[in-house]
């Protein structure tokens, strides 16, 4: 056939070509799925703050493949959620018993443990520690607190670039940590739907540089900056306080929702996706999880290996605000609405 001859393909050839292309696409999709990231998430049920939390957390870390003995002599930073503590709303903040239990796990492994937080709405960190009950807990265990709002900072390049921020000023304790443990409270969030392990890491951003609230981040997009912060941090794991949770107008003004759960994982998107399913909210509709999917970790159910309890029997719908920007969370098939 000359180069000038029109390309003529009969129907059979077209079908054959199409079938070959489809086969190629299927193979490519299968290969992509085969090589796509997988992660394990541990779920424990029937948990209580006066129960054997240390054992549960240790079991969870082991179940997801985290050998805590590797942190002997290393610096471990525990990052609870103390966004705006109030004695009247204990289900807003990470329970002190969870912090002590997580600290005990890493201390017994020989790690140097620090608890750090940069409360997002409160300039007086001593007030945040007192109102949350964390001050007494830290004293009782002789644990050091790093006030991430006021520490000296180091500039770290934004490895995510979902926002146009070129980098972040991270506090010294964050930069120097060998492991950052996100210790969130499982809550709804009135702007982004769900707040758990990834969103909790907003609290590593120093108020002295970004304000109270950390309005610089808001101006660059909450989902985008949640993704970027997580992409820019060194090694992280998550231990989720899902015992007494918050539904409705979270993360501050919502109502108590008892779940009795602890989640553990070394891939934060996978942990948050599982948390969303437990709340009966669609993880794909949480924008920062959508951004993180297959970049920072898996959020698809079939790529998350469940350890401990299966999530489906434990799922219980969390109420969310009836607002248009949250509709996608509950318009997905199978998502129930309270």
């Amino acid at each position, binding site marked *: 056939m000359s180069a000038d001859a029109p390309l003529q393909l009969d129907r059979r050839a077209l079908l054959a070509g199409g079938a070959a292309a489809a086969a190629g696409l299927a193979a490519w999709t299968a290969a992509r799925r085969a090589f796509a990231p997988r992660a394990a998430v541990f779920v424990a049920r029937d948990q209580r703050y006066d129960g054997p939390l240390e054992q549960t957390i240790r079991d969870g870390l082991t179940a997801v493949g985290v050998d805590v003995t590797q942190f002997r002599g290393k610096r471990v930073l525990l990052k609870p959620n103390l966004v*705006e503590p*109030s004695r009247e709303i204990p289900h807003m903040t990470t329970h002190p018993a969870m912090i002590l239990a997580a600290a005990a796990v890493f201390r017994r492994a020989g790690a140097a443990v620090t608890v750090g937080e940069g409360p997002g*709405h*409160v*300039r*007086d960190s*001593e*007030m945040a520690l*007192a109102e949350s009950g964390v001050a007494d807990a830290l004293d009782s265990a002789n644990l050091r607190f790093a*006030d991430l709002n*006021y*520490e*000296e900072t180091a500039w770290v390049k934004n490895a995510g670039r979902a926002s146009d921020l070129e980098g972040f000023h991270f506090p010294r304790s964050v930069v120097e940590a060998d492991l950052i443990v996100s210790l969130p409270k499982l809550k709804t969030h*009135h702007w982004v739907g769900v707040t758990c392990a990834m969103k909790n890491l907003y609290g590593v951003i120093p*108020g*002295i*540089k*970004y*304000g*109270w*609230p950390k*309005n*610089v981040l*808001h*101006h660059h997009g909450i989902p985008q900056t949640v993704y970027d912060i997580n992409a820019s941090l060194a090694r992280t794991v998550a231990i989720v306080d899902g015992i007494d949770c918050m539904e409705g*107008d979270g993360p*501050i*003004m919502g109502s108590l929702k008892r779940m009795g759960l602890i989640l553990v994982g070394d891939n934060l998107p996978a942990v948050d996706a599982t948390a969303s399913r437990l709340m009966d909210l669609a993880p794909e509709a949480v924008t920062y999880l959508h951004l993180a999917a297959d970049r920072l970790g898996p959020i698809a159910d079939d790529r998350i290996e469940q350890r401990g309890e299966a999530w489906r029997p434990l799922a219980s719908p969390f109420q969310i*605000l009836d*607002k248009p920007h949250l509709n996608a969370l509950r318009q997905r098939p199978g998502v129930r609405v309270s």
Partner: protein
Amino acid sequence: MRGWIDIALEHLAGHAVCGYSPGQAPASEPTGLAAMALLLHGRTAAAQPALRHLAEAQCEAGGVGIRRGEPNPQWPTSLAILAWQTSQDVRYRENLHKAIDSLLAVRGETMPRTPDLGHDTTLSAWPWVAGTHSWVEPTALAVLSLKAVGQSEHPRTREAVRMLIDRQIPGGGCNYGNTFCLGQKLRPHAQPTGLALAALAGESKGASRITASVAWLARNIDARTPVQSLCWALIGLAAHGAAPKNADSWLQDAWRRVSDRGVSSYKTALVLLAAKKRLQIAN
């Protein structure tokens, strides 16, 4: 026998250039507060290193960064203005004028009003960081500093006063700067309420909201209130003639707590300022 104030002043005189916690690199906010505390207690010579440090943290355009060598953000500019103005030292006159010009050049971002937020988003005051929205504490500090240099009637000061009144939560008090969010009334906090009330001293408009905030704050502090919040609360209440009768003993107890924990110069400065019951305001 020396009183606790003398002991606290002696500590601060030796650590006037200070960070937020012991051993931390010096920062402009605690150093500015230390300078003011020393000056108000008559320790002019001891305040000099702090005043110089603030000058060294000042950028060419006049703004003062959070630490020397960290020019942004510049919200501590207001504290430097207060410190230099309180010193009445002619050596800092140029620093002072440049800082005032720089402060007046910064405006919080506005946005159209939305039913999602309870406050008037069209009012512009001061942000923590340039390019973001106006919030209570940087605005209160800016108003205090502008009033201190005789700019009470400046249009920016007036708009900022309106903003601070607008950000008071119905029922009293304020927080970082939101009143209602998505229809939900939010909770007030002691520190921003105290700071806002200090800035609103002498204001007649919005009297009912100010009165409600004074009452809320008076009800919500006691001897156990953490030091920072207690000090700003007492400064704010004193600005409205509503200092609690136990204020002095609460401050003495607060100083004991500070000195038991490695003596934070930052908190020492706040306790000493609260003991004076005012930030020095010229007008």
